[in-house]
């Protein structure tokens, strides 16, 4: 993945992401090759609500909107990730995710997510932490 220059730049970018906060430089270098890189055009739908088989995405550059039944629910930016819920639960995606401008992502196909997380427990812990934060926020809104 990436020319060496792009790869270094990508390494620098993802080293600052919360999801990878516990990883050493060589571990990061190993991880970066597990992911594919995808670029999405402004307005392109990345994840389709109701459809199965989507991937796990980490935004490297750009922004995305999370839409449920067409209504905006959240805005995601660099370092944010999405798509993991439907993969973890084996259910169709619960929202559309649409690129809000040209967006560069790291992508891991659904079937590769479990082996990746099991092989990288520190990343799994950080993902769990992020999920816990989302749950806490949702509960707070709910009360």
């Amino acid at each position, binding site marked *: *993945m990436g020319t060496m220059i792009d790869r270094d730049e990508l390494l620098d970018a993802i080293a600052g992401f919360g999801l990878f906060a516990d990883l050493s430089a060589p571990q990061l270098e190993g991880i970066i090759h597990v992911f594919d890189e995808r670029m999405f055009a402004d307005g392109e739908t990345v994840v389709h609500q109701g459809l*199965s088989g989507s991937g796990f995405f980490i935004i490297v550059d750009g922004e995305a909107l999370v839409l449920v039944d067409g209504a905006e629910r959240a805005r995601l930016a660099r370092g944010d990730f999405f798509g993991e819920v439907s993969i973890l639960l084996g259910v169709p995606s619960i929202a559309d995710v649409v690129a809000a401008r*040209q967006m560069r992502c790291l992508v891991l196909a659904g079937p590769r997510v479990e082996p990746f997380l099991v092989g990288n427990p520190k990343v799994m812990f950080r993902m769990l932490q992020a999920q816990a934060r989302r749950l806490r926020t949702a509960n707070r809104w709910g009360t």
Partner: protein
Amino acid sequence: MGDLTEPTRPFPPGAYPVVVIGSGPGGLQISYSLRRLGIRHAVISEDPAPGGMFRRWPFFQRLLSWTKPHAPAPRGSRAYERYDWNSLLADEPEARAIQPELMDGSSYFPSRPEMEANLTRFVERTGLEVRFGCRWTGTSQVEDAEGSGFIVNTTDGDYRANALVVAVGVAQPFSPPGIGMEYTHHYADVRPAESYAGRRVLMLGKQNSGFELANGLLQWARQIILTSPSSARFSVQTRSLAGVRARYVQPYEDYVLGGGVAILDAALARIERTEGGDGSLTVHLRRTDGGGDLAIEVDDVIAATGFVTPLLDLPSIGCSVSGRARLPLVTPWWESTTLPGVYFAGTIGQAAKGLEKHGVPANSGAVHGGRYNARALAGRIASTQFGVELPRPPIALEELVDTIATELAEAPELWHQRAYLARVFTIDPVAGLVDDGVEPLTHTLAVGGDDAIAVTLEADGTGAIYPVLYTRIGGEIVERNLEADPLLRYAGPEARRAISQIVREVVPGVAIEA
């Protein structure tokens, strides 16, 4: 008038509605399909003859894509295309299923010369014309009396086109920068196999090209090492074309059985001349699997590091590209998202990823996927750029289930481009139920509109291949998976019953089959 020294060269520089660049499978298929739709165009190519990359590669002279001379469907039929990955698409019987005519029975993978002959014969039998020996050298946008368009500079002069189709392959050798990379040679510059006799060869890269070379050098090289940062993946594991194909797995078996081949997960740190090493090289590697650093002495380092897309100056006039292969950013219809009017055919078509459901990629990078993309693209160019009205034949309600079942059993577009191309049936408010033909599925999902059914085949990475019907009712899309059949029979009573139940939701007049 004209140049008397070259009386037969077609497409002299000038103005054309469309200019197609390239004479590999992608360029030939789009030219054929545009011609069928009556779209005048010029085809230019720097090569001296048709064939594109198949005039030279694969290095060991046999393809990765099969053609079954003896198949369950009659040769020349539409259903036969499922078993023939290499012939281009034509309507004339004599131009269909050309590849099996040319194979000698020694393998179901055609040899490279057999593939080249297949493409040459396609050109002869269809009467396609190409201006060979005409190299694309530059591009600019133009606004003139003809509207907006492009000027294509070539070694023969300038062309003006309303639309440009770039089908030049992902064909430019790429070696990443790095310390000592000047001591390596690329896959594209590999010497004759016998010149590696008794030598220690290290391959940078563990994809098909690296494994192809390793496989071909097993009987020549003294030692073979394959290395790249991530572990090798095999098509039989991913159950898709992602990963190293079964043909090239032999070096892996040699490795796991201790035969002497080494397969490493390591990144390149640097390459240097070995001191007092009689021309040998020392390759320093950083292992990415948690092990320590390695220094390995070898005689040759081959960069099997892939190819990039030779888009010349297109990026500088606004065509966004991304990724290691520098593929353009495109719409579902293979049009540049940032430079409208520039389209891509052939291997570059893989730039439109589609849904990649369950991580299974489309086969757009290969002839058996790309040929259907090109045909659909020709229709798109004809309708959007030149106002050609594409046929939307009506379908009788009582025929819909039959038509869908037959498509699921036979349609080569759906079998080869799973979860990527779909056959779409729409309820037009005026014309009634119509057949909209084959479209990119992501387009169908995004475009909205009248109630419709999009029919596809999909795979989930477990080995199963099953039909999926997408219904659009009142703008809402619902995905409906049919159960996988281990023998892939999707025209039988069970499938028809399931299809009829789904179809009835969109078209209430359809009877549910018993």
